[in-house]
């Protein structure tokens, strides 16, 4: 018979590390039904019949955050065989709050006190026997980071599950509260399982809405229960929920008094606090932040001697993909006499398309690695705090910063990083705006036009960043005033983990997890679309006969391009080449350059397309080039990123809203720039009027009063790291 053990604990209690430790590579990652909260389960190492179910990090079982709702309904409805409750030993008082709720569920609980090595190092002592006696369940020691005691904890949970015996309920509540709860228990007896009686009674006492909905009690019974609650509230002069909270804490401090000995006084500053006094200092916080970000960016994506990421990516692009794979594979396929179309498909279609993405992988891995270190050290949570003040001004939260930072490398992991934002509205807004940030793949587009029409001016690249960041800010302000995003961003409440030395295991695991999903997702979508594009570009009707075409002006792609081209006429680039390049940009943004190369008859062009600069300068003016660049920087991101948007939105309607918004915004901005630019060149026409109207509309949307302003605070949140 298989046993299911649920892993429950506070955020930052070391739950993820423990889960990885227990299950190794046998993990299944998905979503909890209907929500974007990650669901992880795996089989216990060495025990094929034991399933470990990871629950999201939560502070309590009150249904306020999505994570709490998910965890609670799982525990109450699915009834795992045992709960392994991981508790941070350095912060035991707050962590036991959840424990007091878990032991009411009537499921055998084993408490694993984590970070015991730190507890000992601090000179504190936790008497697990006494703790276990007081809580009525088994308590074990462990250190997830050092891999000590994890398996023992799991085995204790298995034993508890097999025994099926649940401990005596400890006397958490006292006096008139216990009295009232006992009465409620009596009145609902028989309606719920005897084991979970206490849980339901306490929830009814708290007037928990979800509970009332589910139990469907008769009106007279409700009135009877309400009477007990009201009496109790009157006696203690507090509301029911606070009464329960206070009694839980009072109970915990009685337990702690008996079982825990602390060496330092509670309010002495720890090393971590001292670091925080400097790192989050009013004056130093921003400079330190800028330096750290600069270092990360330089190492992963810069062009200096320490830029490992760039060097590895260049090597992959120039040597691995171009020379080794493309060159050798092509020669080999010709040598064995493959049909030219097959060689074309493999080399020009698949390898060139997928290779373009593979080239980014080393850079991404370096970036993920550095970010994983910052996360494991604990600095990432501080960044969100420092940036919150700034991001809040335009309707985003401080937690939006990390997705945007990652998006400067690649939008796909950037959008995926939005997962750590728990507030639904903030997360959607972040997903919608993250794509505006110029990613690594958009750099070649900028390089192409800067080189061809602006004499290689560095200002073009700089302005691209300003346009990207500007688009995020403008969109934030516009969107937060719409009905879709009504209300203030969720108040910022976040637990900060203590700073600690990063563990190699955690960092590598996080790097690999993100890197692999990037390779997988980008790889599959790009592979498919490369084949389609190659086909459209290489085949067409010549004199009514379908076949491979020499001149791609007659290709299927050109036909499609010609139909779409007029749409871009108001933006100044209504040629089929412009339309096609925009379209191929959807597959991967750097394809725009390659497409121009192919369209101008060069088999292969450098990354910045130096060969076609003169030709391009003939077709584009500085203004149309800039308008084209703006549109391509801001419009719908590549298919891989659209896929990521769809996955994170988890909703078709929202995916279309996001893509529609991005394209619409790009179109409007490019048109305003082009048409108003034309005025300086002496043209004034219908387009100018439309552009002026659009500009006025944009300014109105920016400045109008927010009629959905909601001064009441909304649902609060959990911590950023689900560790």
């Amino acid at each position: 018979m298989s046993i299911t053990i649920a892993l429950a604990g506070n955020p930052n209690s070391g739950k993820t590390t423990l889960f990885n430790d227990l299950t190794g590579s046998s993990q299944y990652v998905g979503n909890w039904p209907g929500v974007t909260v990650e669901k992880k389960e795996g089989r216990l190492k060495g025990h094929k019949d034991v399933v470990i179910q990871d629950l999201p990090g939560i502070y309590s079982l009150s249904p306020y955050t999505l994570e709490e709702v998910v965890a609670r309904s799982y525990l109450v409805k699915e009834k795992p065989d045992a709960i392994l409750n991981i508790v941070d030993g350095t912060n035991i008082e707050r962590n036991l709050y959840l424990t007091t709720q878990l032991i009411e569920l009537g499921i055998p609980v084993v408490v694993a006190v984590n970070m015991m090595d730190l507890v000992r190092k601090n000179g504190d002592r936790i008497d697990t026997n006494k703790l276990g006696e007081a809580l009525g369940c088994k308590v074990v020691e462990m250190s997830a980071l050092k891999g000590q005691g994890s398996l023992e904890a799991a085995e204790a949970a298995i034993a508890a599950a097999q025994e099926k015996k649940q401990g005596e309920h400890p006397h958490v509540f006292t006096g008139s509260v216990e009295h009232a709860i006992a009465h409620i228990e009596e009145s609902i007896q028989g309606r719920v399982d005897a084991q979970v009686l206490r849980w339901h009674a306490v929830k009814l006492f708290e007037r928990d809405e979800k509970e009332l909905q589910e139990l469907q009690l008769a009106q007279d019974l409700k009135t009877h229960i309400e009477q007990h609650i009201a009496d109790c509230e009157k006696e203690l002069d507090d509301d029911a929920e606070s009464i329960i909270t206070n009694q839980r804490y009072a109970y915990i401090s009685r337990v702690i008094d008996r079982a825990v000995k602390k060496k330092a006084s509670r309010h002495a500053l720890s090393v971590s606090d001292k670091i925080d006094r400097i790192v989050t200092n009013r004056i130093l916080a921003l400079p330190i932040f800028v330096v750290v970000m600069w270092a990360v960016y330089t190492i992963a994506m810069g062009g200096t001697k320490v830029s490992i990421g760039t060097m590895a990516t260049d090597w992959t692009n120039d040597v691995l993909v171009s020379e080794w794979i493309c060159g050798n594979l092509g020669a080999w396929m010709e040598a064995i006499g493959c049909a030219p179309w097959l060689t074309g498909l493999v080399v020009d279609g698949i390898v060139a398309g997928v290779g373009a993405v593979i080239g980014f992988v080393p850079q991404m891995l370096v970036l993920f690695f550095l970010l994983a270190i910052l996360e494991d050290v604990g600095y990432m949570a501080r960044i969100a705090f420092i940036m919150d003040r700034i991001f809040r001004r335009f309707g985003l939260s401080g937690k939006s910063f990390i997705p945007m930072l990652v998006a400067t490398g690649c939008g796909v992991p950037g959008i995926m990083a939005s997962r750590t934002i728990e507030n639904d509205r903030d997360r959607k807004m972040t997903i919608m705006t993250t794509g505006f940030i110029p990613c690594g793949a958009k750099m070649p587009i900028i390089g192409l036009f800067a080189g061809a029409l602006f004499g290689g001016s560095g200002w073009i690249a700089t302005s691209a960043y300003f346009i990207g960041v500007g688009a995020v800010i403008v969109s934030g302000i516009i969107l937060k005033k719409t009905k879709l995003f009504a209300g203030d961003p969720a108040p910022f409440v976040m637990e900060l983990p203590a700073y600690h030395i990063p563990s190699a295991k955690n960092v590598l695991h996080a790097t690999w997890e993100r890197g692999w999903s990037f390779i997988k997702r980008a790889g599959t979508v790009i592979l498919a679309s490369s084949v389609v594009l190659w086909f459209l570009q290489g085949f067409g009707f010549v004199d009514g006969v379908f076949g491979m075409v020499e001149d791609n002006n007659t290709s299927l792609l050109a036909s499609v391009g010609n139909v779409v081209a007029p749409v871009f006429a108001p933006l100044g680039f209504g040629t089929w080449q412009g339309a096609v390049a925009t379209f191929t940009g959807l597959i991967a943004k750097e394809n725009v350059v390659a497409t121009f190369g192919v369209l101008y008859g060069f088999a292969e062009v450098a990354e910045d397309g130096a060969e076609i600069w003169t030709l391009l300068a003939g077709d584009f003016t500085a203004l149309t080039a800039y308008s084209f660049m703006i549109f391509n920087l801001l419009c719908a991101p590549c298919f891989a990123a659209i896929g990521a948007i769809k996955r994170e939105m988890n909703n078709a309607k929202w995916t279309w809203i996001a893509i529609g918004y991005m394209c619409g915004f790009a179109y409007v901005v490019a048109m305003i720039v082009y048409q108003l630019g034309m005025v300086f060149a002496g043209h004034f026409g219908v387009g100018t009027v439309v552009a002026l109207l659009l500009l006025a509309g944009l300014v109105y949307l920016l400045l109008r009063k927010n009629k959905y302003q909601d001064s009441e605070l909304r649902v609060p949140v959990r911590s950023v790291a689900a560790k």
Partner: protein
Amino acid sequence: MMPLTMAQPGQTVVIRKVTGKDEVRQHLAELGFVVEEAVTVISVIGGNLICKVKDSRVALNRDMACRIMI
């Protein structure tokens, strides 16, 4: 009584009252912000603050910190 935002970095204060909607109060309570609990302010940036409560560090923005009266 005054809001927690008035406390200086390094100061340890005792919570007198937590105001606001039930759900906000409940969440703050779950994080350890309950009446009579001592809070140490670690750093303050423009009204947002990091403080230490029940052995954990919690970052709060100004809106939330204003709800905690000391």
